[in-house]
Every structure is written in C-alpha cells, then in structure tokens.
C-alpha cells in the first residue's frame, strides 16, 4: 500500500503535481497513464525520492517498499563506462560482489557486457537498465515508460522480465503510453491529468467502462 | 609517476639547503659582466662555500639584506650602503673594487657628446636638446648615480624625452636601443650586452662616473640564521691577493671591467 496525502511538487514556480490524495495497493503491476506533462513521471520520481515534496507526505506500507526500490528511466541513464561497469555500480555502492550472470543471459545482453554502454541501441540500453534494476533485488520496481520507442523484441523481453519479477513478489509501478501494454500487464490503473491523480481503477473496469475523467483522453488515443 | 616526481623534488630540495651554501644579493653588473662566473668557482674551491646569487638592483639587494633573506650583499651606492650600516642592518661596508659608468647612445650622437668633457655637461646637452634619455628608474645603484648627476646639472629631467623603464640594466638597454635613447650604464653590462644595434659608447672617462662596489655582511645580531662565518671567509677571499688579482685580470673584449681597490679592514 502506498498512501499520498495532499502532496505537491513545484519547480520554478510551477506546480508539477499536487492537491490530491491517493492510496493504492502495490501488489502486482500498477499502471500510471495520462497525457505528456500530466505528472506521471514526476509522480514516479517523487515516489523514488528524486523530486522533493513541497508539502504533503508519502507513506509506504513497509520499509522494504521505501528502501528496496529500483528505478528504470525513460532515457537510459548510464555512467560513461562499459556495460559491465555500469552493472557493477549498485553492488559497489553496497560493497557487495556483483552477481548478475543469469539475469544478463535472460535479457540477452551478455554479448555486449564489455562495450561502452552509450554505444548500444536504445533497446539494448533499456534491457541493460532493467537488468541493473532487477539484480538489485528490489521490492518495488518503478518503470518510467521503459518500452517507449523500442522494437518488438526488446519490448517482449522487457515485458516478460517484468512479469517474472511480479511472480517473484516484486511490486511494479509502470508509467506507460501504450494502452496495449497497460491492458496486457497491469492490475490497476491510475490516471493523471493536470498534475492530479485519479483512481486507482481496476484495469479491466478502466477499459470496459472508462471513468468520466479519462474519457476525452481515451478518445484521443483511438 | 607521482612518486618519481616527489623523489626528484626531494633531491632538488635537499640540494639547495646544504649547510655551506650562502646567499648573496648582487647587482646586475656583477653577474651580467661574467665576473661571477670566474670568481664563484674559485671561492668554492678555496673556501668550500657555494654562493647563490640573487641578482637585483642595489635598492632591492639592500632590502633583501635588511629582511635577512640573504647573508651578504655586493652593491654600488655608497650613500645607501652607509645608511644600511647606520640602521644596523649590517656591521660595516667593505670596498672591494670599482668600475665606471659610460653613456651610450646612437652613433649619430645628436647631442654631440663626443665634443664634451664632463659627465655633467653631457647630461646637460642631452636635456637641453630634448634628446631621448632612458633611465633605470628602479632605485638601483646606477639609477642613484644617474640621479646624482642630474642633481649637479641643475636642470629638470621630467620632460617627454626622459623615459623611465623601471627595470634592470639589460631591459633598459634593450629599450634605449629600440627607441634610440641615450642611457647611462655601467661599462661591464654594456660590453657584455648582445643587442647593441648601432649604439656605442659616446661618453666616458670622467672621474665623476667612478662606480665603487662594496661588500656588506648582513647583521647576524639581527638575523641569527645568517651564516656569518662563511660570509667572513668569503669577504676575506675577495680582499685577498688572489681574489683581487682575479678581479683585476678579468677582461671582456680585451677590456678590463673591474679594478680592485680593497683596503685593510676598517
């Protein structure tokens, strides 16, 4: 369970998200949808501590959800180093020995472990990003449009890996523009508009009988 | 890599703080003339003292002595030296040798110095004609000697023709040659100067241009770290028969530059 109360995030005098309460169960996959600039990314970043709350509070049901987070950025973020060194980084932070052979194989990135991360294709980069997130054994995995503009192979690999993670009890919050993906993967939907969250809605219900607030947006998508 | 640099630095530093090193502030002419290259190796051979020269103008040399940053000074400006001793910065001054000043200028000699017989008249002619004159303007011995001469001409020397470089002898000579200005210089610096252009000595020989060098130890009462024993030994060497002979024999371009005239200790 995640509970947000009267939260507000401002930057340069503009409210990015704010003036709403939200509580949702985290089990399975929670999809966050809405137009560009509606506050999806900001909300995800705020959950992860990348944005500061001007007011309000966010409470996680337990500490594991707060501390055991991993984040996959929309634009893959890497050190200017090799893939391997990028994967080693989280372990170095914790002073542990790197272990990611199995995940790397599953994500089909083993062949380019020693290449500079920046030289990979977008799909490969995003697979490396997800590998890095998964090998940290997170309790809560936050994904910011991980498959935006990726080819079918990469999208399939990533979706499969997300579903595997969920089977292993990882809670996933996924911001996405792809209605197909949301319908395929998610258990519940939170809709953002003008920085305000609406929901959560049960996914099947959301698509069967779209709530009034999201109707225009759904029409645009069609 | 870094370790190697440190080792090299350490060796270099160690080499400069040897016990028997002594620092002496000297005027430009002493080094530029080449005399120091003759004397220093002999001094080191005979006394074991390695002398490090700080080459500056007389004014700054005396200030270095005053601050205790050198062990001795060798300069040429009697009035300033006497003031130095009277203020207690040094126990005494010891005259070692002299050379002379000359006035150099463009071969065309617009002020007609060639027909003049005294230094005062020579400067008078330069000032009266408004011919360019380059001055050290740096409180050095040469500058002080020049100012003393101007004093005697009873003429102002502040016109557009009078250019102060605020620099050492060499720089002032470079400036003078470049702009075609007369300049007062010690003979040694002139003979050893490479960039002479069409300049030559236009006036010389007036006893007023006599230039006495003196050796002044820095007071070890005021600055206990001064290596007084070594200074004493170097002074003794400079006034010894050998030291004086070497000074007198030193020639450049077939000319004697310095004339030894040390007298028994005052």
């Amino acid at each position, binding site marked *: 369970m995640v509970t947000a109360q009267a939260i507000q995030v401002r930057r340069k005098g503009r409210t990015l998200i704010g003036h709403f309460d939200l509580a949702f169960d985290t089990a399975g996959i929670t999809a966050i949808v809405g137009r560009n600039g509606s506050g999806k990314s900001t909300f995800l*970043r705020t959950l*992860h*501590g*990348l944005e500061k709350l001007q007011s309000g509070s966010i409470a996680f049901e337990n500490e594991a959800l707060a501390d055991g987070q*991993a*984040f996959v*950025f929309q634009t893959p*973020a*890497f*050190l*200017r*180093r*090799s893939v391997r*060194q990028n994967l080693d*980084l*989280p372990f*170095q*932070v914790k002073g542990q020995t790197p272990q990611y052979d199995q995940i790397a194989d599953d994500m089909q990135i083993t062949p380019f472990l020693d290449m*500079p991360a*920046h030289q990979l294709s977008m799909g490969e980069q995003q697979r490396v990003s997800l590998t890095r997130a998964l090998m940290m054994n997170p309790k809560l995995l936050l994904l910011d449009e991980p498959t935006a503009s990726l080819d079918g192979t990469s999208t399939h690999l990533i979706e499969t890996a997300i579903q595997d993670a969920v089977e292993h009890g990882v809670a996933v919050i996924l911001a996405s523009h792809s209605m197909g993906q949301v319908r395929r993967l998610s258990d519940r939907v939170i809709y953002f508009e003008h920085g305000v969250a609406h929901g959560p809605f049960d996914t099947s219900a959301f698509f069967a009988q779209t709530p009034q607030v999201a109707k225009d947006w759904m029409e645009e998508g069609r | 890599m*870094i370790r190697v*640099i*440190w080792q*090299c*630095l350490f060796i*270099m*530093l160690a*080499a*400069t*703080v040897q016990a028997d090193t002594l*620092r002496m502030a000297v005027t*430009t002419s002493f080094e*530029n003339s080449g005399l120091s290259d003759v004397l220093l190796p002999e001094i080191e051979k005979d006394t074991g003292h390695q002398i*490090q*020269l*700080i*080459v500056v103008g007389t004014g700054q040399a005396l200030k270095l002595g*005053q*601050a*205790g*940053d050198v062990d001795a000074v060798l300069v040429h400006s009697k009035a300033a030296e006497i003031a130095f001793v009277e203020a207690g910065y040094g126990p005494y001054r010891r005259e070692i040798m002299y050379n002379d000043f000359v006035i150099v200028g463009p071969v065309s000699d617009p002020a007609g110095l060639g027909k003049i017989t005294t230094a005062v008249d020579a400067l008078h002619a330069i000032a009266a004609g408004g011919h360019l004159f380059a001055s050290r303007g740096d409180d050095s011995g040469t500058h002080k000697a020049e100012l003393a001469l101007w004093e005697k001409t009873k003429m102002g020397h502040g016109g557009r023709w009078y250019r102060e470089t605020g*620099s*050492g*002898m*060499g*720089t002032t*000579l*470079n400036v003078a*040659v470049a702009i075609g200005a007369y300049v007062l210089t010690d003979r040694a610096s002139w003979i*050893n*100067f*490479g*960039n*002479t252009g069409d300049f030559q000595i236009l006036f010389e020989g007036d006893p007023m241009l006599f230039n006495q060098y003196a050796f002044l130890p820095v007071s070890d009462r005021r*600055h206990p*770290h001064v290596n007084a024993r070594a200074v004493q030994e170097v002074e003794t060497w400079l006034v010894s028969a050998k030291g004086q002979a070497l000074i007198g024999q030193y020639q450049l371009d077939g000319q004697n530059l310095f004339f030894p005239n040390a007298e028994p200790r005052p």
Partner: protein
Amino acid sequence: MLWPDLLEITLRSLLISLGATVIASAIAMPFGAWLALSRFRNRRWVIAILNALMGIPPVAVGLIVYLSLSRSGPFGVLGLLFTPTAMVIAQVIIITPLIASLTHQICRELWFEYHDLLISLKTGKWHRARILLRDARRGLITAALAGFGRAIGEVGAVMIVGGNIDHATRVLTTAISLETSKGNLWFAVSLGGILIVLSVIVSLTVHGLGKTERGGRW
C-alpha cells in the same frame, strides 16, 4: 650557457611545474567536484571568488608568497625563500583556482547527466565525487594540463620567490628573462622554443597515458 646547464634548467622547470600541478590538482579537483555536487547558500559567491582568483596576477601571488616566506615574514623560520619549494608554493597558488574552476565546470556538466542515476542508486556524497572525478578524467587531464601550462610559462612569481639563482632556482622562464636582459634575444627566443616543445611533449605524454586506460573513448 652550456648544454648540461640547459638540460638542468629544463629539467628543473619540468619538475617544479609538474610538482605544482600534482599538488594543485590534489587540492583543486576534489574541491571542484564537491562544489559541483553541493548546494549551499553562498555557493554563487564561492564560484565567483574562484573565478576571480583565476585572474589574480602571478606577480601579486609571488609578492605575497615572498612576504610570507621572507625571514622577516610569518613563515621566515622555515627558510624556504629562494628555494624550489617556494616556487612550487607560488605556482600551486596560481594554478589551483584555475584547475578548481575547470573541474567544477566539467563535473557540473557530468553531474547533470549522472544526477538521477547516482541518487537513484543511493550513492553517498564521497562516492559521487569519486565517480565524477573518475568519469570526467579526460576533461580533468586537460584541466591539469592547462594548469601545468600556466605554471611552467609563469615568470613573475617564480622570479620573485625563487630569485633566479643559477644551479638552484633558475628555470626556463627566468632564464629567458635573464638572457633578454643581457640582450641575447635570439638565445632567449630559443629558450622559449624549448618551453613550447616541453609543453607539447608533456601534453602528448599525458594524453598518451590517458588513452591506454581501460574504458575506451567516449
């Protein structure tokens, strides 16, 4: 001037300025990285002062070091005036603001790129600084070389604090100054040529070493 003398002077120039560059980098680079990572109230002022210090005339630094190290000054007892150490100190003071400012600039851009990732991975401040300095090393090498160039080409300060003593503190620049004052202009220019060649060799060597490191080019 004889060949051994020339070699000695060249080597001394190199060692003093390399030493100064190493020390200045050790101070300036962590400081620059820290400045790029930190947000505090007077940060703008610190950066403005740093940039102003880059423009401080070396001769002024020389004078301050001279007055401090003079026997009559506060650090006179150390007896450092007119030694290579004094020259290293002066050069460190001259080039530290330059290297720190360049480091800050380079690290700030990299921090902009790394910000989200490193915060997401819960890195500590110390760890962040280390990552920035490591990954910005190519730019930092250039910053260090800029500092080295300024150090080895500097004449006013080292003349004042070193005294241009033959076989002790004479370096290429002060030798150039001396030969110019002797009117040996061509020789002075030749020494300037050596100075340039030396800088080029150092630059090529450092960049050559940098390229062989693991991690490839970016």
